[in-house]
């Protein structure tokens, strides 16, 4: 143990009340920071998992062809405009695209989807629904549909082409249960009868209120589409790689490709704003704790003026005196961060068990929390920065104290 750490520790332990006060501020600041981040990210993570689980991490959509610019050289003053694209609805070579894209190591699986909007009717209730024509086997492998089923069996859907799986909120709205009949209206104006084989809850309100899954071939006939897929959805090993892979796929297949980050940008920004807002609010608590430590250490310097002069007379350098007080701050930061992380994890665990009924953007029956080491890391970093800044001024002041002035106070 260095002499400055030793003396700093002794100074700190000698003033137990001040130490407790300083520690409390840091512990609560760190713990509350962790809790709020765990909650806000918990809800955001739930949303992300749900949307990726239902709509995939990456979607390849309609084909495009660049609209080639004129061969004439533009004037130098002309601003360059991005090349326009000619769009062609649907994917005609879905199997070929899927075969190639499966070669990418990031791709776990992919599934073609024929998407369209139709009217649904059950009893006297009507609703406009988002019809997903899927390959039952591939879709089960690519999405979380099996986990999302809250009623019925997926095999019943897989083995019977006249069955549907519908979103939980839509089922409530139409008043149907598994085994019930519902009808979908084709563009030609005729109603097709289906049996509800399952009810799925994605956990995202907009999906659960509109989504209907049917078999791809049935959907193609119902929607009267000339192509078998309007998009291909992908499950990736690392969803974080989706934007890079989307760019790669777009260049490779000449089809519009969209990552989940682009698709859910507005909602993600909302969550990000909430997290940032919570982080700023809680950071103020840590800053207040830092201010408390500033006061405690300043008082400590004032009460230790004599000791500082003695230490200087014994050969301690200015930098040593400074280090004694910086060590005190560092020890408070270290102990406060450690205890704060412990308290934060306990509080996060407890908050995760608080029952709450959420039926809107998200579906949840209790507080959603996220366990992420980065919350602990950043809370600790923030606490250490705040405490060290708070310690710096008193430490510098201590180092600048002229020892002779103090010693002269007792004898001239």
């Amino acid at each position: 143990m260095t002499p400055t750490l030793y003396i700093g520790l002794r100074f700190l332990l000698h003033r137990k009340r001040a130490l407790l006060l300083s520690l409390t501020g840091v512990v609560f600041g760190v713990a509350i920071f962790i809790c709020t981040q765990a909650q806000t990210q918990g809800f955001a993570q739930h949303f992300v998992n749900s949307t990726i689980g239902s709509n995939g991490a990456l979607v390849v959509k309609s084909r495009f062809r660049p609209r080639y610019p004129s061969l004439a050289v533009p004037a130098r003053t002309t601003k360059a405009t991005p090349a326009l694209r000619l769009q062609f609805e649907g994917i005609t070579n879905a199997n070929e695209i899927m075969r190639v894209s499966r070669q990418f190591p990031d791709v776990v699986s992919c599934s073609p989807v024929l998407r369209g909007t139709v009217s649904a009717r059950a009893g006297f209730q009507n609703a406009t629904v988002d019809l997903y024509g899927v390959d039952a086997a591939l879709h089960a492998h690519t999405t979380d549909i099996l986990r999302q089923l809250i009623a019925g069996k997926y095999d019943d859907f897989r083995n019977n082409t006249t069955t549907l799986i519908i979103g939980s909120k839509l089922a409530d709205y139409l008043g149907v249960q598994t085994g019930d009949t519902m009808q979908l209206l084709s563009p030609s104006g005729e109603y097709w009868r289906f049996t509800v084989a399952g009810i799925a809850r994605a956990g995202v309100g907009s999906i659960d209120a509109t989504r209907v899954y049917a078999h791809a071939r049935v959907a193609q006939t119902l929607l009267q589409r000339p192509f078998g897929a309007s998009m291909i959805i992908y499950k990736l090993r690392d969803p974080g790689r989706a934007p890079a892979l989307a760019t790669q796929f777009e260049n490779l297949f000449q089809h519009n490709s969209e990552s989940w980050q682009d698709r859910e940008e507005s909602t993600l920004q909302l969550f990000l704003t909430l997290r940032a807002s919570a982080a700023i609010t809680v950071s103020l608590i840590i800053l207040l704790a830092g201010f408390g430590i500033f006061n405690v250490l300043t008082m400590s310097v004032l009460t230790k003026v004599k000791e500082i002069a003695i230490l200087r007379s014994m050969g301690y350098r200015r930098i040593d005196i400074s280090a004694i007080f910086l060590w005190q701050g560092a020890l408070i930061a270290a102990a406060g961060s450690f205890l704060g992380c412990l308290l934060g994890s306990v509080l996060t665990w407890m908050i995760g068990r608080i029952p709450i009924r959420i039926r809107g953007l998200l579906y949840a029956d209790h507080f959603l929390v996220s366990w992420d080491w980065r919350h602990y890391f950043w809370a600790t970093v923030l606490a250490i920065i705040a405490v060290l800044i708070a310690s710096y001024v008193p430490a510098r002041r201590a180092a600048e104290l002229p020892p002779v002035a103090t010693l002269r106070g007792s004898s001239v």
Partner: protein
Amino acid sequence: MNGQTALKCRDVERYLGEEEERVHALRGVSLDLEPGSIHAVVGASGCGKSTLLYVLGLLDAPDAGFVAIEDEPMSHLKDAELARKRNEFIGFIFQFHFLMEDFTAQENVMIPMRRLGQLPEKEMCERAARLLDAVGLGNKLTRPSRHLSGGEQQRVAIARALANDPRVILADEPTGNLDTNNSERAFELLQRLVREGDKALLLATHNPAIAEACDWIHEMMDGRIFASHARAQRGTSFS
């Protein structure tokens, strides 16, 4: 004064305060401290005794002149180097002992050793115990310094000043806060340790008996040493 000097100063000038309150505290002071010698600086309060001690102890810088430890001038050294010299070569004893209240007697003595960093923890403990034993406090090693009497605290301060086996001990009224009995005991202790360790001791004192017991008496007035008397010149023996 002949032989190699442990500490010396030449033509030291020191001003204290600012503008109207500016005081010429030291006026061309020169002094040599040889190993094994005991020097007393006497004079009225405010004559510059403490200022001289702080300048010689490298706690304060002279405005003119220089201080040298073993013939090495200190004027050009920076704060960190001066601190190292203080730690290695100089031991301070103050009138109000100035112990660290949060520490035990033994821990107080170990503080300079920790800074020097030449001994492992165990040896520092043993050396501190030996020093405290030498000043008669071998049975109070673990007692917090604030629970010691005034005389005991001053003896801890003496042990602490000797912690790094310095060549020079500077004592500012070391017995000024003690009763007669304790004053005599503390001075005798200092005398013995200085003689045994071949150290140089300079003490500022108002106590004539203690001054008379020193090898040299330097009389100060208005920032000047106007007279220095060796014991031989005084024709008496006090030790």
